[in-house]
């Protein structure tokens, strides 16, 4: 019996071209024993939701530095729900003002990690909050 692994889609919605943060997170999650599906830059919410479905991920981790998070993050959440992925954990990261965080949480993003968050915090959060039965 192999161990059930946590599968995470690390995605960058929108138009900014900076994926260093996303790569750092991807690497940290890999080192924590997770399978990280990395999709690259400039993904539309539709592309992200479709990839999440095809890859049957447990977690969608969104990284965004362009300022469009209030639009794009809820859109991803909505599309995931429409595609029947209501058990997937959605987290976000990037340059996101504190004042926007309550809005994002109301719209289905479980946690927001701002610059300076230790990767261990992200890993712990994911391990503690993955919604599907992961043993």
């Amino acid at each position, binding site marked *: 019996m192999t161990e059930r*692994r946590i599968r995470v889609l690390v995605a960058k919605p929108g138009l900014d071209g900076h994926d260093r943060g996303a790569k750092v997170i991807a690497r940290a999650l890999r080192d924590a024993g997770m399978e990280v*599906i990395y*999709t*690259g830059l400039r993904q539309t919410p539709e*592309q992200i939701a479709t*990839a999440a479905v*095809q890859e049957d991920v447990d977690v969608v981790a969104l990284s965004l530095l362009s300022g469009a998070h209030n639009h794009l993050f809820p859109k991803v959440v909505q599309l995931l729900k429409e*595609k*029947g992925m209501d058990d997937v954990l959605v987290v976000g990261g990037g340059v996101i003002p504190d004042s926007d965080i309550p809005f994002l949480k109301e719209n289905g993003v479980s946690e927001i990690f701002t610059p300076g968050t230790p990767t261990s915090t992200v890993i712990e959060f994911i391990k503690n909050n993955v919604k599907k039965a992961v043993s």
Partner: protein
Amino acid sequence: MELTERARLGDQRAIARLISLAENEEPEAGEALKLMYPHTGKAHLVGITGPPGSGKSTLVDKLAKELRKRQKTVGILAVDPTSPFTGGAILGDRVRMSDLNLDPGVYIRSMGTRGRLGGLAKATHFAAKILDACGFDYIFIETVGVGQSEVDIVKTADTTIVVTVPGLGDDIQAIKAGILEIGDIFVVNKADRDGANRVVIELEMMLELNPQKSQWDFPILMTVAPQNKGIAETVDRILKHYDYLLASGDLFRRRRDRIRTEIVDLVTQQLLARIVQKLEGEERFETELDRVFNKENDPYTLVQTILEETLR
């Protein structure tokens, strides 16, 4: 089972769930595969293998787009290595395939090797069966970046494409045993680089030395995948190879051999798992270990005794 029915109707979420069940070796996966098996055998399974960075993912992306132009549906299984130290993996093949994403006639799945060393994951074979039963016309299986001896792909694919690039080494590389023996089609990708012609010549020489005469002509194609050069020709050859396999009877021989291998592999694995499980649970095993350690018995006699007892 409802999940298999939904998958066969093309529900990508159901297909994805089934593949996860197989990857995680859940008992439901075995039941699902039993239901799917009668519907397999219609797809053309195409393996893509070659060294890391040779452009396998980009090539798969372009080949899939070409097949879509020809109104065919495509499933893609892309395998990347799992860390032997942490069990984690970065599966990055989708980066090269992002605009295939929204095409409903394409399904892409990334898989970590999860401890397998032959270039594929243990569940890749099952995933291919699932996609086959779900009606995809073509299934591309992209192996991890391989060195010289990861040849599991031939146990799954009908047609194997070996991708190489200029600049990897001299002509002795081409006559070594291993992946070059498994290609039905050879692709020299990044053929706009210096040395591409030389690689083609070396491959031709290697193939001429092949003592096994075959009606198949083992084509060597030059491609520059990002510019779509050589892609339509490669697809033509993939289709032609399938015609050859059908006409020569090789398809049936290969597939029958594959079933044999699969059954033997599964029996071996399950027997192994059972024996190991039984041993680990037995206190007597520890006592026997001590006896071997103290030279009162030897490992080989003990192995014989264990096998005789288990298989009785």
